[in-house]
């Protein structure tokens, strides 16, 4: 049986088609990366490129390996769920080269309020302070240990709370007198300062213990005659005892 004769123009067209298809196949091989479509309509190698990204945060387990003396008390404290790097910042470099890169610590007053400043949107019961009123000017770390943030121990010095008074008294003639020389401070005042108050002197004779004529003490102490000086006024009506004026 004789095969039907294919017209010349069809052969030509077939030839052009073959070239176009071949060109398409070649282009497909050139332009589509080999890993495209391996797992889906995407380039499988892209996943490896994303995986190759370097980490900056090492994770708390990495910190724990060396700093267990900090981690041990911290894991039982209120801050047990706070990762080290939440405050100290990314530390993967520190894990690689402990001496070359040392992560910082936020010691300034602005950092802790990011969590602990009062905000009505925060969940009820979360410990919050009004930063403007809470010991203004003092760094949080002076009273609170961030790795074991219990409520601060009762202040040992009056200046912890009465800072402004302490600041002027320190440069006054009364600098050498302890607060308890004039104030009797009940133990409870340290714990409940708003309910149990320290006592203040009430009579002129108290100042007279030092400043009356004939009172014991050095010659530098100014003396007055209690009977004639200042008439019926109390001493602190005119003199500020924390910063008595110059002679």
């Amino acid at each position, binding site marked *: 049986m004789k095969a039907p004769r294919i017209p010349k123009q069809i052969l030509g067209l077939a030839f052009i088609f073959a070239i176009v298809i071949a060109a398409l196949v070649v282009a497909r091989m050139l332009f589509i990366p080999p890993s495209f479509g391996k797992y889906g309509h*995407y380039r499988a190698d892209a996943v490896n490129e994303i995986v190759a990204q370097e980490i900056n945060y090492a994770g708390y387990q990495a910190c724990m390996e060396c700093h267990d003396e900090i981690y041990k008390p911290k894991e039982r404290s209120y801050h047990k769920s706070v990762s080290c790097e939440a405050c100290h910042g990314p530390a993967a470099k520190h894990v690689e080269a402990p001496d070359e890169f040392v992560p910082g610590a936020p010691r300034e007053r602005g950092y802790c309020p990011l*969590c602990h400043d009062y*905000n009505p949107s925060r969940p009820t019961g979360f410990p919050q302070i009004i930063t403007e009123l809470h010991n203004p000017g003092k760094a949080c770390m002076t009273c609170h240990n961030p790795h074991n943030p219990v409520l601060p121990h009762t202040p040992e010095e009056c200046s912890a709370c009465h800072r402004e008074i302490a600041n002027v008294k320190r440069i006054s003639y009364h600098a050498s007198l302890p607060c308890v020389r004039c104030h009797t401070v009940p133990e409870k005042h340290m714990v409940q300062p708003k309910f149990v108050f320290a006592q203040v002197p009430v009579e002129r004779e108290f100042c007279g213990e030092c400043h009356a004529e004939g009172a014991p003490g050095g010659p530098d102490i100014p003396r007055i005659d209690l009977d004639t000086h200042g008439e019926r006024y109390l001493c602190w009506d005119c003199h500020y005892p924390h910063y008595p004026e110059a002679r």
Partner: protein
Amino acid sequence: MKKKKSNPLSRREFLMICSKALPFTGIFFIPFTADQILFAQKTKEYDPTQHEYAMGINIHKCIGCGRCADACKKENNVPREPYYFRTWVERYIISTDGETYVDSPNGGIDGFPEFKDNLEILRTFFVPKLCNQCANPPCVQVCPVGATFLSRDGVVLVDEKYCVGCRYCIQACPYGARFLHPTKKIADKCTFCYHRLVRGLLPVCVEVCPTQARVFGEVGLQSSPLRRFLRFNDVVVLKPSLNTRPKVYYAGADGEVR
């Protein structure tokens, strides 16, 4: 030689040939053992088919400190400008007259200033947001070049080299989780810190969250923190009506959250 013999080789000859061939037998084993070693390494490495991840967010625990958004930027080198976020924290304020106010100044990184409007607040809370890693992601559907895809472990990723920066995906995302990277000019988004997952680390927002408002883990593992989160909380996903099937579950989410 006599060809009648049934054995063409004598025992002695056979053993001699065997002893000569002995050193070459190793050739047959070398590729096999090498492949075995490689295979062993691969199995010790990360197998995406064995994982499926999801995140849980407990709104009752979020204190809006913005450490997640800050750490995310540091980990993933997201531009520091306040318009680009892979994750951010929104503040919802619902007033007594039923109006809802949502703001997110710098993603919450610098804290939330006092709300100035003289509102009578009915309720208010923080909502951390990120890519919801949808199982049916609209961004992947619209990508014209196959640059964004759902990986085998269920994370939606962006192929940096393939993305042409057409922004279709940014338009398509119902959660506003994508942005155009200002210098690379490609779409950028949360990857669940994919590069950390394969190293066995948590996503960095989960790592630094001080109240553990964010929980992360395997969907398929009964003992994972995520499954525990799902057992103990009533969870919702955002915009469930869109059938995107998100893998970020919110506990304690108000009806106003979307």
